[in-house]
């Protein structure tokens, strides 16, 4: 196993790595600085789109010419050619202390993303689903910080974390309707050293990978929630994770250069870099595009 810096952009809050199989490109974002990045598997041919607000997540649209982006004030469509943004819907117009955070596309092409309390203290956030017809639906609420939505390979289980709950949850996912039910604990995340569950992805074997921010660890959980392996990363503030590359066997891990919570120390020269983990012999699952 080998860990490398693949792009040394120092993202203030790197998030949301996303490999698009059709384009063979990696996308990722800087949530705090409001930027979308794209690069080849080896970190070249970089493109960058700056957006005027904090951004929590993104997914490519079906034609690949643009993306659905979760901005602080609502879901938007981003045109890659012009950089223009078009508002879909702001589900929380009266919650100025919230922003929309992590999100991902289900196996049917719906976009699921949750919001967070920017002070990371009150259960003011909710979980939303954006359907291909651009209608927005609330799936759950009472969340402090939404993170790590992802699905089992067959699409029937939905994993999701409220970072400060100390747990990753699993819901039954109705693939016909996109509704969730029967929320229960998938696994406990040790928060005793200040860490918390951040971004997640599920590999081809159905195991869930979670980036544990402030702990500097990437953890692989078996489908029953037990720990399969733990990888120590060169920085503490790892934020999210995704498989990519031509064979879907490269793990991309984002990180943050500046902690939003000042109690956590800095990560030195590697802070905010985009990392790859190679040589594990494990493959991911291709990410569907947003069908809208």
């Amino acid at each position, binding site marked *: 196993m080998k860990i490398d810096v693949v792009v040394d952009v120092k993202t203030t809050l790197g998030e949301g790595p996303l490999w698009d199989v059709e384009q063979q490109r990696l996308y990722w974002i800087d949530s705090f600085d409001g930027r979308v990045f794209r690069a080849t598997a080896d970190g*070249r041919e*970089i493109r960058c789109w*700056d957006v005027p607000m904090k951004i929590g997540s993104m997914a490519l649209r079906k034609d690949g010419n643009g993306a659905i982006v979760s901005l602080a004030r609502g879901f938007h469509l981003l045109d890659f050619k012009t950089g223009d943004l078009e508002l879909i819907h702001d589900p929380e117009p009266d919650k100025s202390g919230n922003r929309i955070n992590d999100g991902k596309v289900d196996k049917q092409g719906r976009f699921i993303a949750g919001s967070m309390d920017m002070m990371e203290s009150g259960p003011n956030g909710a979980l939303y689903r954006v359907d291909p017809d651009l209608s927005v639906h609330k799936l759950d609420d009472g969340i402090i910080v939404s993170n790590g939505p992802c699905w089992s390979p067959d699409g029937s289980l939905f994993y999701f974390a409220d970072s400060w709950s100390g747990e990753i949850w699993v819901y039954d996912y109705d693939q016909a309707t996109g509704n969730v039910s029967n929320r229960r604990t998938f696994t406990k995340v040790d928060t005793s050293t200040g860490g918390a569950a951040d971004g997640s992805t599920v590999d081809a074997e159905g195991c869930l990978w979670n980036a544990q921010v402030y702990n500097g660890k990437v953890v692989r959980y078996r489908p029953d929630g037990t720990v399969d392996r733990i990888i120590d990363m060169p920085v503490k503030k790892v934020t999210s994770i995704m498989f990519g590359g031509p064979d879907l066997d490269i793990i991309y891990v984002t990180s943050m250069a500046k902690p939003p919570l000042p109690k956590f120390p800095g990560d030195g020269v590697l802070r905010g870099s985009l990392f790859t983990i190679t040589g594990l012999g494990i493959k991911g699952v291709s990410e569907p595009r947003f069908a809208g």
Partner: protein
Amino acid sequence: MLRIEVFSEDRNQLGEGPLWDVEEQRLYWLDSYAPAVYSCDAKGNDRKTWNLPEPVGSLALREQGGAVVSLRNGFHTLDFETGAVGLLRETHPGELRPRLNDGKVDRQGRFVAGSMDFEERDPVGTLFRLDPDLSLHTLDTGIICSNGPCFSPDGSTLYFADSHKKVIYAYSYDTTTGNVGSRRVFTTLDSLRGYPDGATVDAEGYVWSVEVYSGRLIRFDPSGVIDRIIGLPVQSTTSITFGGPELDIAFVTSMARPFNNQYHREREAGCMFAVHGLGVRGLPEPRFKG
């Protein structure tokens, strides 16, 4: 391993024009609004300062010693022994809006520098070339804010940014005559928040442009595609050169007091940064032959 350090802690109001002189093994740069020229050795020691009477946009060392400086109203000589400044060529006689800004010496020893609208609003700027015989030539007009002139390794392409338009142009450049031919858009920063400021070309022919108001170095391949982005500790980065004994350190200037009064609260705004470990070398900057 990439390592970014504060090389000079002095906070320049508008740090600009970093220039590594291979012969002296010294770094030169400007504070456009001090206004002053500074110099130090590779370790940041043996600091020297020359004060100037007017805002300064760029500087080139002369083969015969001393420097040419681009002041508000034209090209001037600067005598490093006495500090005396003497007018060589006035660039915008009778006009108040344009002042000379960024400039660089071409591979043959001519000095190419452009002017900018003080108010950064109207296309009143011109791109000039000062030849070794001290004759002055106009290369292009209609520029709002001249920045980042630099040359491909073979000298046949002149890169040049109109910051306000968020465009970096590439001109075909006649190395024999110093005239420019066709101009094309090399790249735009349309989808980015910042503006193209100072620039340099490395030994591989890639263009390093400093994105001001966004605090980043962007390395473009010769076709204009982004190859690398390096974030710096402050938003108000302004210009770049490669220097040091191995020409492998990127020296990056910044400003403490930009015109729009943003970002000056950043603790290191206005400092000179040294970026080590990029794994890239620059090319020696020629001196002005006049």
